[in-house]
């Protein structure tokens, strides 16, 4: 088979490493292998071998044909979660040694006395302060004491420090002192990972900047080390193109920059799923979508507007604040492995603890005694005992029943199938609530959305979720279980540039604003040119974060090149007021809006991924049917069973039915109906 211009997406998850390759004709090949947390690059190589085998070629011939390789990784996430990051030191303004430990002076849950703050990522002896002072306006009040700095750096260097964090007050207004630190580090010949707070986050708020720069330095060296190891392995095996790394923002960066801005990889994996949902939205021309990716332990939810996933500014990760933009993915502790239990008041509850992969749900027969969502779905007949994970794992209904019987049925005095259906319903309602929070909280009506359901465990809840929220339809892509890896292939190279302005709109004239953006554009274009992009393959997105002068939170106002041709800034005032009013139902009409920050995002466009589109063929789904199986809904009934992969464009499946594939199952209730679209995706409709 002659495959040229192959594109490969690789997603390293907690349990599995997923690989997807797509050739020019759109032919998709997938592979799944166990992750190897000790050295994740080993799992990647095994996966690539598998992928090569599936397309009957050698690894080196596969890699030689590869023109794009995008990688999403949990390396950064794991370093943070497991607290195995770099040994760090910090340099800050005199008098402010303890920024990291003083935090925000409060804690979110006032009633929980027993959860301690996490240990600071930089111990106190490794935090040095230097005489220097930049004022609130950016004016230097006291110049940097270089002698003191040199002494501090020399002292820290003796402690095998791997990462140096620099956070001076007001560096977002004037970064020169932070830059001087890096200069001196270089002059001293110290090869240490340097994280300057203003580069990681150019925004007011010293704790946010310090914390974010610290996370960046904490995961940076580890991520860099891993990426260069992986790059070496790939090069040795024949890859001759640069490796790109998926970022939390949904863009990709070459490994050098990905390593420097390591804090931007914390959401690398889930971002792939959100990007894939964006891609499917674009293919099916869906204006508003919400995606949920339900795996073993959690469900990741993201909103997709005009095929672009929404973003957020700040993430609290295990009580550590990371204030850089990321796709606005919210995680719920509900997945197939979530444990069902009775709470202190005797009420049924699900998760957030999970049985994980080991021992896994009771039905895996690996010694798990706690009943999980997967056990409930098995008892209900929604999951087949034979085809789970492509038949590699046979499931024990008996073990599932025992677990549910002991922990749920007996205490609640419910028949096992009633307990199971209550667990299933609780999961659906959790997901629905998460989706509601993601939509309604933004003032958006779920009825205007389509739902993308992917990840192994989602198909059994999709119909219930859309019915509960009155979402008109759910779409389940055929490649649901490896969708994140596909998502990597639907992205572009992306860099974000910001310039803090801090002035009322009425204070600026159009020329000034234009020149701010012109500077940002020049910087952005230079960067992408250096990566080999020509101007035709660059896309620029301009926006301004605006607010009223006395507010802190900003609303993002999109700007277009034509706006900058105007001689006045009335357009900006009008856009800001409209956006603000939509969000908050009022404006302050006697006050000018205030420009906080100008933002420029540059995309280096990568070749579009086009999945094959199929013509309508045989409409009879009977050919895809694989017999029947008993399922419990409100009573036991017989449901037709179909093979997902054999259902083709235009086929319509009437419930009650279950659609199985090696990695997922989809439930269609007696009132439900599903249709297959041109890409092989299933569409379920709510019973409105």
């Amino acid at each position, binding site marked *: 088979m002659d495959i040229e211009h192959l594109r490969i997406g690789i997603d390293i998850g907690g349990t599995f490493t997923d690989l997807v390759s797509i050739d020019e004709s759109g032919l998709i090949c997938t592979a799944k292998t166990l992750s190897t947390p000790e050295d994740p690059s080993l799992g990647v190589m095994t996966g690539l071998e598998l992928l090569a085998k599936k397309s009957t070629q050698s690894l080196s011939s596969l890699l030689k044909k590869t023109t794009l390789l995008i990688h999403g990784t949990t390396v950064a996430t794991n370093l943070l979660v497991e607290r195995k990051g770099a040994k760090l030191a910090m340099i800050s303004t005199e008098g402010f040694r303890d920024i990291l430990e003083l935090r*925000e002076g*409060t804690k979110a849950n006032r009633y929980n*006395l027993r959860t301690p703050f996490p240990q600071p990522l930089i111990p106190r002896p490794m935090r040095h302060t230097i005489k220097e002072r930049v004022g609130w306006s950016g004016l230097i009040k006291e110049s940097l004491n270089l002698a003191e700095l040199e002494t501090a750096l020399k002292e820290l260097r003796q402690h095998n420090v791997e990462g140096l964090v620099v956070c001076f007050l007001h560096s977002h207004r004037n970064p020169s002192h932070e830059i001087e630190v890096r200069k001196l580090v270089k002059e001293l010949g110290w090869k240490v990972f340097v994280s300057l707070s203003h580069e990681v986050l150019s925004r007011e708020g010293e704790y946010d900047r310090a914390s974010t720069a610290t996370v960046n330095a904490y995961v940076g060296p580890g991520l860099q080390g891993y990426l260069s190891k992986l790059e070496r392995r790939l090069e040795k095996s024949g890859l001759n193109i640069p490796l790109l790394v998926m970022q939390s923002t949904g863009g990709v960066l070459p490994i050098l920059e990905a390593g420097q801005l390591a804090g931007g990889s914390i959401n690398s994996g889930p971002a792939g799923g959100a990007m894939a949902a964006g891609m499917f939205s674009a293919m099916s021309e869906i204006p508003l979508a919400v995606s949920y990716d339900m795996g073993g332990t959690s469900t990741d939810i993201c909103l997709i507007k005009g095929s672009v996933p929404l973003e957020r500014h700040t993430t609290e990760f295990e009580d550590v604040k990371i204030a850089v933009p990321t796709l606005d993915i919210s995680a719920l502790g509900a997945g197939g492995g979530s444990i069902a239990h009775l709470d*202190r008041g005797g*009420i049924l509850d699900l998760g957030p603890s999970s049985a994980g992969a080991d021992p896994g749900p009771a039905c895996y027969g690996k010694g798990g005694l706690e009943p999980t969502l997967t056990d409930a779905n098995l008892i209900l007949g929604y999951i087949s005992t034979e085809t789970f994970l492509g038949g590699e794992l046979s499931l024990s209904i008996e073990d599932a029943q025992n677990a549910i019987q002991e922990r749920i049925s007996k205490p609640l005095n419910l028949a096992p199938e009633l307990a199971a*259906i209550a667990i299933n319903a609780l999961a659906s309602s959790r997901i629905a609530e998460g989706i509601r929070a993601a939509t*309604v*909280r933004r003032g958006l009506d779920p009825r205007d959305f389509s739902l993308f359901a992917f990840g192994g465990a989602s198909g059994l809840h999709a119909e219930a979720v859309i019915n509960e929220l009155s979402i008109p339809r759910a779409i389940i892509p055929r490649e649901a279980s490896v969708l994140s890896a596909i998502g990597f292939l639907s992205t572009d190279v992306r860099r974000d540039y910001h310039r803090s302005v801090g002035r009322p709109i009425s204070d600026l004239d159009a020329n000034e604003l234009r020149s701010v953006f012109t500077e940002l554009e020049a910087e952005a274009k230079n960067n992408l040119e250096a990566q080999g992009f020509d101007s035709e393959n660059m896309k620029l997105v301009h926006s301004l974060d605006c607010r009223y002068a006395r507010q802190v939170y900003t609303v993002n106002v999109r700007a277009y090149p034509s706006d900058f041709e105007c001689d006045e800034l009335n357009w900006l005032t009008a856009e800001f007021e409209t956006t603000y009013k939509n969000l908050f139902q009022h404006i302050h009409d006697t006050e000018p809006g205030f420009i906080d920050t100008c933002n420029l995002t540059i995309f280096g466009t990568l070749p579009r991924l086009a999945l094959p589109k199929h013509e309508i063929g045989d409409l009879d789904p009977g050919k895809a049917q694989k017999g029947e199986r008993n399922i419990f809904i409100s009573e036991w009934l017989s449901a037709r069973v179909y093979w997902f992969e054999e259902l083709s464009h235009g086929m319509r499946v009437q419930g009650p039915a279950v659609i199985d594939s090696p990695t997922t199952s989809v439930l269609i209730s007696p009132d439900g109906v599903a249709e297959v679209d041109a890409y092989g995706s299933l569409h379920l409709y709510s019973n409105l």
Partner: protein
Amino acid sequence: MTKTTIDQITTEVISHRFAATADEMMATLVKTSYSPNIKERRDCSVAIFDTSGNMVALSAIAPLHLSSLLGMVKNITERHPIESLKPGDAFLTNDPYVGGGSHLPDLTLMNPVFVENQVVGFVANLAHHSDIGGKVAGSESADCTSIFQEGLRVPPVKLLNEGDLVKDVLDIVLLNSRTPHQREGDLKAQIATNATGVRRVKETFQNFGIKTVQSALSSLLDYAEARARAEISKLPDGEYHNEDFLDNDGVEDKLIPLKVAVTIAGDEIHFDFTGSADQIAGARNMPLIATQAGVYYVVKAITDPTLPPNSGYFRAIKVTAPEGSIFNCRAPAAVGDRGATGNILGDLLMGALADVMPERVMAGCGPLHGLIFSGIDPRTGEYFVDYETYAGASGALIDQEGKDAVRVHVSGAANLPVESVEQEFPLTVERYELLTDTGGAGKFRGGLGTRRDVCILAQSGKLAGRGLRETVAAPGLFGGAKGHVGSFFLHPDSNHEVKLPGSFSEYPVDSGSIVRVETPSGAGYGDPLSREPAKVLDDVINGKVSSAGAEADYGVVLKDHSVDENLTRELRDQRGGGYEQ
């Protein structure tokens, strides 16, 4: 599916919806308000009530805010009968004696929610405004001796009449504040917040039907009550006592005794404050509702922190305090600084229950210290008021250190970032750091207090300060040492250093003056001589305890960055400590 199962799930969905609505309201309030105290420090709360005034959802960073919310429905409907309410009405109030509030800066706005032409509930939000008039800039000072000195009193009055702003009322509020522009921005934010709440609550009632939602709410209240009672039942019946003191009454230097008797009987718990001081001259009096809020916080924190935030669990708790006492003050007692007393109340109650539930309570805590800066900003020529508080630290627990630099018990707002302080106000922060050796020694150490130096660059600058645990330090538990006391200083580390009292106001400061705040720290838990030497070493390495402190407070002798086992054993034996522990 059985009927009970369906109901449980519906109830849960409805409960989540109300919680999500409260969160969404909170986000609107924080995002759209103007004053740093609300937008950054999040000194604000929102709640949703049923028609009888039961709170069914809450989003709050400070437990004390409950006190300005709980009495609201009753007080508003007494003045404006429920039949007279119209869609689009919104009521503003702050008064503790006629409005159900707990101190004047907390302006609370409440809207009825109408579905099918009937009131189905109320949404409310509270925002701590940084100036509401009165004798002191910032409207909160422990030395006020009457509520009439503390600012504008607003009984429940309409701020919106069927959706239209009642400008006359707004004008009264604005005219009485030293910083009217911020007040207007904040009030607009409060109006927008309730508009959001009304819309969402309405949707919930419309989606599920009035009857279903009402019955779900009532079962949620019952559920919270049942859970609280189940927890209380586990505690041994009996009567438990404790006593603590306020440093002063805000006016005169004399200790103010606080007493509690806690009676546990079956699934009920009763807190009786008889024997505590009569209401005091200064502003640290607590309206009964504030006392209740403090009690509800403690019960939830030490029984089951996951109790749903609704009125149901209050039913298992009884609170009594003699009328006219510090815990149930009468008009016109000043109440501005009731939060300070509320934090000592937290220690008082935890101390009372320490023998009953040693594994749940905290040792005494270092409460926040507050400063209010005012004057003319030379950069703009405008008058400014900066209301800030600085975190103290929490006491140790049975198996862990107290938290450093954190607001404790009933208070909860966040720090104002130093960069925001300097941007917004004519102030520069010279240092902000942890105070070594302040954590009360113990088998587990109390949290460290903080030190902050602020340089004032205002013209005609004035300073007001307030803080407790400046004389009476946070009490330790089971042999743990007390916390360190807090202090205010002017011109620190100079030869004209002045120690300021624990409550002062309208203190003139020249431009260029530096004020220092040292916040009190948390107390220790258990005998310090039984603290693992390795932990003491760790504290020394991390600068939380000095080498001298290790020896003096813990009997641990260090040599070359490690513990000298022999000398430590000797020293501890001399002091009769339990080294083996």
